[in-house]
Every structure is written in C-alpha cells, then in structure tokens.
C-alpha cells in the first residue's frame, strides 16, 4: 500500500516544542486529556513513515508486510489471528539479546523497532504479538504478558532462565494458550511443563490505543512497560 503523505507535522517535533506542549497541558490538564482521547486511532501510515525515516526502506517494507498481515487477519477468528500473528513474528524476527541489538542490558522495544531490526528478545516478541492482537481487536483482558521461569536443556536439568511469553485466555477461567518465540506452535499452558508462571500484566488501566493521556507524564519513562507503551503511541499505535 503506497504511503500517503502523512502527519509530517510532528516529524521534527523539537524538544522545546514538546516542553511547551507539556507546559500547556499541565496548565489546562483536563482539557488536554479530552483532546488527546479524541485523537485515539492508530496511525499505521505514520508508523510506516517513521520506520522509513529511521531505519530505511527495508524497515518500511517490514512494517508494510506486518500491516498487510494485520489487514488480512482482520476477518479471521481469534484462534486463527493468534496463529497468524505468532507465525508472522516468529518467522520474521530473529531472537537476539538486547545487548547485541540495542547495546543495552535490558531494553523493551516497540513493535516498530522489533519489525525494523528484524530481531528482538522475548519481551520484544511478546510486546509485538500483544500489540498486533490488540490491533486485531482481541480485548486486553484476554491477553497477558507473563513473566515465566523457563527450564532450558533437558527436563530436570535445573538450568532455568527468565523468559516472557504472551498468554491468551479464551475465557477468564480457562487455561491460557502460550505464544512463545522459542517454539513455533501455540500450546496450552499445561503442555508447557518447561514454563513456570511468575507474574502477568497487560495494559489495562494504563493505555488507550492511539491516545496520549497519562503518557504525557514524565514518570512514565521510569517504568519499562509504560515507557514502551508511550513510545508506541508516539509511533502511531
């Protein structure tokens, strides 16, 4: 899909202007929230445009492919959506450590960054899948990003590592389906004896797609999860 001339007005948004915007919002708090919510619609053109600007044509193409996958999957049922998204991201994205990709010990990348780099670690996979499914209309309460302890090597070897997967709960009481980057297919949790859940979270109470509500708040940067949510919003999601 050709990229229409998009909202370039924010492209060179300088720090000063951002600071000013923050100030204005601080002054007129509630009014700005209303304005922010009213812009709530994912702007995937913008996302593609940003990918092109930041990472070049290859990245834009990757985002484009992701967009067409999302567009194609729109009419499928939820399980098929899971399958499509899981396969797409697992295939197109190579696993690598943050230190190799981002030169940081731990970095939570946005879907744009993951797609553009074609690489990510477990959080990046989970975040990209989470956001793709949210875009496809899967409600947040069915999705959980789950910290798990993963047994690596032979069962019973005792060697484990920290890992993150995306859980899908078809119903609140059901056993989740696990979307993992380590294995290609989606299995129910009981078929993943190598994984031990520790804690789960989603974006409930934190995030409205396309909105820029509380993310205007500088404390956001201090939380990895809120930080990545904010960056995604800025990138058009």
């Amino acid at each position: 899909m050709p990229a229409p001339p998009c909202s370039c007005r924010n492209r060179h948004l300088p720090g000063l202007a951002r600071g000013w915007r923050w100030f204005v919002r601080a002054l007129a708090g509630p009014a700005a929230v209303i304005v922010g919510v009213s812009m709530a619609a994912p702007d995937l053109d913008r996302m593609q445009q940003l990918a092109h600007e930041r990472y070049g044509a290859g990245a834009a193409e990757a985002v484009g492919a992701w967009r067409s996958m999302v567009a194609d999957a729109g009419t499928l049922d939820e399980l098929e959506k899971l399958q499509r998204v899981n396969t797409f991201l697992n295939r197109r994205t190579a696993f690598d450590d943050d230190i190799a990709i981002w030169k940081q010990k731990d970095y939570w990348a946005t879907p744009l960054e993951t797609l553009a780099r074609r690489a990510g670690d477990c959080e990046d996979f989970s975040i990209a899948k989470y956001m793709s499914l949210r875009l496809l209309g899967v409600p947040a309460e069915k999705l959980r990003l789950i910290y798990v302890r993963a047994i690596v090597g032979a069962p019973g070897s005792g060697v484990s590592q920290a890992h993150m997967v995306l859980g899908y709960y078809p119903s609140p009481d059901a056993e989740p389906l696990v979307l993992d980057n380590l294995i290609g297919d989606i299995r129910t949790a009981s078929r993943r004896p190598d994984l031990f859940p520790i804690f789960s979270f989603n974006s409930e109470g934190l995030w409205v797609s396309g909105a820029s509500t509380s993310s205007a708040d500088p404390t956001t940067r201090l939380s990895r999860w809120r930080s990545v949510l904010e960056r995604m919003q800025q990138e058009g999601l």
Partner: protein
Amino acid sequence: MSLIKQLWIAIAVITALALGGSLVVSTLSARHYLEQQLQVKNFDNATSLALSLSQMPKDPVTVELQVAAQFDAGHYRLIRLTSPSGEVVVEREFSGTLDGAPEWFSRLIPINARPGIAQVQDGWHQFGTLTLDSHKRYAYEALWDGTLQQLLWFVIGGALTGLIGTLIIKHITRPLGQVVEQAEAIGGRRFVTTPEPGTMEFRSVVRAMNTLSDRVRTMLAEESRRLEQLRRQTQHDDMTGLVNRGQFLNLIDSALARDDAHAAGILLIARFSDLAALNLRLGRETTDSLLRDIARHVGEFAAQHPDWEAGRMNGSDFALLAPGCEDPGDLALRVGQALHAALDARPEGHTVALPIAASAYAASESRSHLLARVDGALATAEQSGDRAIRVAERIDKSPPYDDLQAWRNALTSSIERDGVRLGRYPVRTSDGRLLHDEAPIRLMLNGAWQAAGYFLPWVARLGLMPRFDVAVVRAALQEISASGAQLGINLSPESLCDATFRGELFGLLQAAPQAAPKLWIELPEYGVVRHLGEFRALCVALRPLGCKLGIEHVGARFAHLAELHELGLDYIKIDAAVIRGIDTNAGNQSFLRGLCMIAHSLGLVTIAEGVSSDAEKRLLPDFGVDAMTGPAV
C-alpha cells in the same frame, strides 16, 4: 478622575494580575505534580501487591489479610480484587469524609490520579484484577495549604506593592500639584513664575508657563511705561513736570468728591506775582530755571504723601493739593519757608516776589468756591508783601463738635448706640446691569445719618479707622446675607496695616462663606502703593475666601499697580480725575484706553468713578471701561 487615582488603579490591576496569575499557575503546577506522584504510587503499589498475591497461596483468608494489611497500613481510598468473571473478591474502601481542604476547593481544583490496576495470577490461571486507589486527602491538604500560603504572600505582596506604589506615585506627582496651581493662576491671569521641578515633562511645562508669564510681564511693563509716558505728556506740564492745569482741576474735583478719611484737606497756591516782568528782568532761561526750582520744591512736598498732588495752575501759579491735611496755617508756613529759602539760595532770587495762600476745604464743597477763596487770600497776600503768607478761613461751616475729645465721644457713642448704616450707590456695567452697590459708611451724628466725608477725617485723626472698618464689614456681610445683594466696601490704609483688623476681617469672612463671594473689598490706590507688602499679604489671605478684591481711585500711580499682576485682583476703579471731562480731553482718552487695555490683559474689571455726565457715560465703554459709577449712573 484624578491622575493619581488612575495610576493607583493601574498599579492595583497589574499587581492583582501578576500575583493572581502566579497563584493560579503555581497551584495548577502543584496539582499536576501531586497527580503524578499519586498515580505513580497507585501503579507501583498495585503492581507490588499483585506480585506478592500472585506468589501466595490463594485461600480467601490469606488473600483478605494480604489486602487488608496493605490497606490498613497505607494511605488508600480503595483496594479491590475482582475475579476474572467480575465479582468482587476482596474490597477495602475508606469511608470517612475528606477533611483537610474545603469541599469547594477539591471540587474547583480536582486531583485526577488514575487508580493502579494489576493482574493477579494463580499459576497459569487468572486469579483476578487488582484495583488500587490512594487516598487523595493529604494531596488536597497539601494543595490547600500551599494555596493558602500563596494567598497570604499574595496579600502581603499586594499590600507592600500598594504601599510602595502609593509612595512612588506621590513622589512622581508631587510637582504636578504645583504645575496645576500655576496653570490655574495663569488661567486666572495671575502671571506667576514657579521653580522648575525635577521631572522632565513637568519641567518642560513649567518652563513654558514661566516663559509665558515672563513674556506677559515684560509686555505689561512695557505697556505701563508707554502709558506712563503718555500720561506725563498729556497730564503734566512740559517744563516743570508738575500736573498741568486741566488735570489739576480734575484732581481737585476728585478730592472734593472723596468720601473717606481724606475727604477734607488743604489747597495751597504760590504765585510769581509778575512773571512777565520777571522774564524781562532775568531773561527767559534764568526765569525758567527759577520756575523749575520752585516746582521741584513744591513737588517734593507732594511726594511726601501718596495722595498729595502738585500742579502748575498756569504760568505763574504753583498749587499743592493736600487731602487729609488739617492745619492750613502750618502747611502754608512750612511750604513758605521752604520755597522762600530756595529763592534766597539763588543770586537773583532775593528780589522775586512769591506770595502764598492756602485754605482748608471740606468734603463736597464746590471747586469754584474753593478756588475763589484761595484766590482771594492770594490777592490779599500779594497786597501784603512779596513773601506774604495768607490763610483763608472757611467761614461757611462751623464744626459740629468743638474739639477732638468731643468728636471721640460723639463717634464712639454713636457707633455703640446706633451702629453704622451703609449707603447704596449702584455700579452698573455699560449695558446697564448692576455689578454691585457701593456701600459707604453712614453714621448717626448731630441728629442725622451723616455721609462718610463728614466724620471720617475725624475718625482717622482719632485712630479709629480699623474699628469702623470692622463695623462696615460686619454690616455689609449681614446685609448680603439678608438681601443677597452684591456690596462693595472701602477699607482704609490704616486698617490694612493693622494686624488685629486683618485677623478680624479674616474671621468675619470665614464665618460667612455664603456671603463672602458677594463682597467687593477695595482699597485706595495711594494706600496700596504705600503699603504694598501688607496689601500683597491681604490678597493672598483673602483669595481662598472668594471675596472680590480691587483698588479704587486708580490714576496717576497705576504704573506701580502693574507689579500686582500675580495677586489675582478682580477689579480697579479709575479715579474721577481721569474720567472727568473725558469726552473733551483727548489726552486722558488715550490714557484711559491704555489703562483699560492693561487691566483687561490682567483679567481686571475696569470701573469708572465719578461719571457725572451723559456724554461721559456714553463714551466710556468705547475706551474699554466695563462698568461705571457716579452721579450720572
């Protein structure tokens, strides 16, 4: 609205805007900060509680205890755990009321911190969603306290700014009052100069007004000088510089019509018996020099008293008019001695005959009677010898009281018994409107209400003028209060110099603020010229009281009066000696025209005294006279 008020309002508005704006901004930014902190606390506490719940056994008691412990030990409004299907598993809610900040305040500036939400996991299964909301009470309290403190500073700062602003405004506008005063003075044709203030703009204005005043003053001085020249040319004898015959006769008329303490006086004439023979004998030049010498001595006598006049009645007759002088014998003797000594001092003077005659006159005597009497005496003197001195007694009148003591008794008993009455002589403008009534004093003496000329010379001799003037002022104010008429009264120079009188006058006028603006107070020109300092002080003191101030009998000494331009006088009354026969006297016409011009440029109303014929009355407005009084009016 005054400038000071406007500046003050401007300062108040700016201060309120600045301080009020900063109050709003700082309150809102404090609110924003508090919101952020609360929100972070909500998120973090929700996450950490969810994390610990996820790790724990999920029996209801443990879960309940866990939540309760967090709630009870912390500062929360709400902690709620709902199962995935939406039922509430545990809920703790703070039910107390919000205190710490008034309710309207929390409604006006609400703190919107979103609750923290976190998921609780039981193995792979969802256990529930945790909602945690911190109590905002302490946030509101902090915000409220901060706002109150700000408000306190606002009030202190505002008061301080107001105080400093007022002082600064006062400092800035201090010269303004002075500038306005000068502008008003110039508007009232008082051409004063004031020291230049420090503020640049005010300085320019004051400088401009000072320049204007100086220019007007210079112009007036020049006009006065030209007019004085004109007067000398038309009213004075070329050779001797004394008043010429025509004007001297006018002066006699004016003196005889006087109605004040100097209503009576003496006319003295010295005559070179045979001027033609003298001319032949001594030669024209020597004779002229002799005449000038004698004229100078006669002039010196006149100069000793402000209202005495010396004149040359004709080629050989030198006259001295001495209003207010009582003893003709003494005066004649003194003049005779001086003139004869002057003659004797000259080599050719021993042979010159210079008989002298004098006579006293009384108020309202006719001029021809007086002149005839003095002429008769002079003829007798000429018969009696070259240097003879004769005094003609007034035979027609015997004084009503024999001596000073009798007069004193009569005057004091009259004023105590009957008080004074005021006459009424209208002063009308040229279109017939009544300007005011002249109100001269009347006193019950000798069985009748007597005019001023009858007794005032005796009052003056007895030093009772201030007492009588006070009585006149009091009577005039009473009459004004009763009838509402405008009244003009004369004050004597003796009263002008009397501090007690001035105090009484001031008190009387102050006590009658309604009547004072209708009182026209005038002093004779000769008195003003002699007591310029006192007159100035009187003007300054009376101006705020609203009464009108003027000078009467203005004529020969007007040149001194031009100096009074900054006093704010209201009118002058021009002496009858100038007005008399104005219809035929071209010289006096020019003089009168110039005098009125100067008076008008000082904002003075000009009033002609002693208008006695219809011809005068018809012509006077053409010369610039605003109003008239006298027998013909």
